[in-house]
């Protein structure tokens, strides 16, 4: 596939736009000096990712991403931000001052992974059918071959739920406990 072929496909234009949006949002997630903005940029990055999933005919996962992440997880994050009273305005102290080493490490990681990807799959073309993978297939896989992992993951979620409650709720002091049991 030549560059001309690549450019002439409209789907690649869409990819370029969405990809840029994802990259910019992703970058701002880790550099924004406002906690709430960072969370909202994550929404942007995730929404863009959902768009990419749609391009890759993974319709169901795209909507799961939108529902679970943008719908629920981000709200959880916003709650976390509010409750821990992180400064919601501009705050220079959100990032540490030693930025060079992390930047070098991240860049090295990126170069390494990008090189590996290009080296191994450089010319591999995705034959886009435009047809979303039927959810039925996913459902059968989840309740068929992956039934036991599915159950285990659901148990992990339950454990996380209980663990979250146990961790986050305030332990009553002995005096308060007595007060409550007296009622």
């Amino acid at each position, binding site marked *: 596939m030549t560059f001309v072929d690549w450019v002439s496909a409209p789907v*690649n234009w869409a990819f370029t736009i969405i990809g840029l949006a994802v990259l910019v949002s992703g970058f701002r*997630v880790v550099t924004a000096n406002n906690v709430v903005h960072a969370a909202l940029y994550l929404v942007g990055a995730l929404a863009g990712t959902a768009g990419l999933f749609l391009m*890759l005919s993974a319709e169901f996962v795209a909507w799961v991403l939108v529902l679970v992440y943008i719908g629920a997880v981000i709200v959880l*994050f916003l709650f976390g931000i509010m409750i821990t009273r992180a400064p919601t305005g501009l705050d220079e102290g959100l990032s540490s001052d*030693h930025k060079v080493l992390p930047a070098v490490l991240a860049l090295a990681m*990126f170069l390494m992974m990008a090189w590996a990807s290009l080296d191994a799959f450089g010319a591999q073309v*995705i034959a886009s059918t435009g047809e979303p993978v039927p959810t039925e297939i996913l459902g059968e896989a989840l309740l068929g071959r992956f039934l036991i992992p599915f159950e285990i993951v659901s148990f992990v*979620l339950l454990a996380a739920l209980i663990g979250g409650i146990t961790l986050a709720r305030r332990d009553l002091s002995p005096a308060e406990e007595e007060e409550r049991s007296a009622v």
Partner: protein
Amino acid sequence: MLLSQFLVLAAALFAFGIYGLLVRRNMVLILLSVELMLNAVNINLIAFESVLVSSEAIGQVFAIFVITVAAAEVGIGLAIVLMIFRNRKSANVDDLSLMRW
């Protein structure tokens, strides 16, 4: 579409996540960076799935598992952050250098 364009994009997001993980001081923001990295993994899974086209959509199934586990991780992570905040009145990792000599 090329497979590698998605992979490189995912690599970039992953690198951003690592940068955020190493640079951020607020624990909530660190968790956000982790989410970014998990998201990059998901892009990889979906992209490979669309090339391999397994009959059982294995890549997508695993993406769903990753999303589920990520949700559990956020729940527990934020609960821990909350508890630390309550005990130490701070959500900064710099204030948590207790694990040392």
